[in-house]
């Protein structure tokens, strides 16, 4: 079954992010700051069949161990994704994503009049006044947004 082998091919060492919302894998890589220029082998599978979600994306990054601080950044766009840390072909750590308390420098504030959208040396900073449902609040202009309005 060469197709199945291709989709589930194991990696020796690295990070596998599974159950990504279908179609979001490229955005996940972008948020993780992985561009491919690092020279690591990256496998991206998009819109593959999933028993749980119908369709899903999978990202495998070899020889890279992403910390929870990094992977939790993707929780806003794909909250049910799981992170597997692989060593010698074995899953040594399996962790769900957790919403972070704040998100720095990742998303633009949608308020065009926010100081973060001016020509100033400033990083955007959102904190989460609610995690269920998740809401983002800009530290500077104090506007509150649903994640879909920001991402």
């Amino acid at each position, binding site marked *: 079954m060469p197709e199945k082998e291709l989709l589930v091919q194991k990696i020796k060492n690295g990070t596998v992010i599974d159950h990504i919302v279908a179609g979001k894998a490229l955005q996940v890589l972008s948020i993780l700051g992985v561009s491919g220029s690092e020279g690591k082998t990256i496998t991206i599978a998009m819109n593959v069949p999933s028993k749980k979600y119908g369709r899903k994306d999978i990202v495998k990054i070899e020889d890279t161990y992403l910390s929870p601080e990094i992977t939790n950044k993707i929780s806003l766009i794909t909250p049910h994704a799981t992170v597997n840390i692989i060593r010698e072909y074995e899953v040594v750590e399996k962790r769900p994503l957790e919403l972070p308390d704040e998100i720095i420098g990742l998303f633009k504030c949608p*308020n065009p*009049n*926010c*100081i*973060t959208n*001016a*020509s*100033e*040396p*400033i990083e955007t900073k959102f904190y989460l*006044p609610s995690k269920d449902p998740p809401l983002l609040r*800009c*530290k*500077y*202009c*104090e*506007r*509150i947004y649903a994640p879909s309005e920001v991402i």
Partner: protein
Amino acid sequence: MMMGNPFKNRDVVSIKDFSKDDLLYLFGVADRIENLSEKERGHLLEGKILGYLFFEPSTRTRLSFEAAMLWLGGKCLGFAEPRTSSVEKGENLADTIRTVENYVDVVVIRHYKDGAAKFAAEVSNKPIINGGSGTEEHPTQAMTDLYTIIKEKGVIDGLKIGILGDLKYGRTVYSLLYALSLFNVKIKLISHPMLRVRREIFFDLEKKIALSEHDNVEEVLPELDVLYVTRVQKERFPDLAEYEKVRSSYVVNLKILQKAKEDLIILHPLPRVDEISYEVDSSRYARYFKQTLYGKKLRAALLSSILDAKV
């Protein structure tokens, strides 16, 4: 026991950073300054300099800060118009702040961007006072508004307060609502449906104070103790056609005021356009020009507290 000075060296970026006790402390300082002899008062901020950076037009905020500083023996420098500064050459806010802070003891800034004062406070080593930031906040106006209510009504707790006009873009409305939420008041928000308060107000305050929204000022007027009127903020509308639809939604005149309580007071952060008829100015309700005088006293209290003058 005398409480310590909670304003010493402190930024005044958002009214949300201050407690009820902080505000009452400030009002006490304002009263004490007024009761000082001219000689004592005139030395309170001797040798101190206020820097003012106004990226947007202002009459009352800038002049009342200047008047307050001069009243207490201090000096002022700055710009009332960014075109006379290097901002016109493209200098950003961060560099402007880093320069001006070397010349002054405290800075008041007005800027058209939301969050500008917060950013300025992060950059500056000197205390920053927010003199109005975009549609976000105008904390010293809210302090003035509360001080005016206390002086004119004797109390804040127990009052029914109507806030009328542009509740979407008016920054004074936001600071005032957060300030009033520290007291036990009932608030009626009266506006055209297009000018309702932003969702943040209900998210933050719904559980703290009684808030209700209304279209018709005449319906709620009879129960109000304070009516706070605001101008429709033409300069904040992304689309001027929208402004034209709502610009004259409300006009407070003597005919409407026939339904008001005898001891109603009307406040307005000013400038006024046409939302209060001139005929109201000489009525027993009008306090908006007196409010501007309270603004100077309140800002004198704020400057002397931030700079820790012994009052």
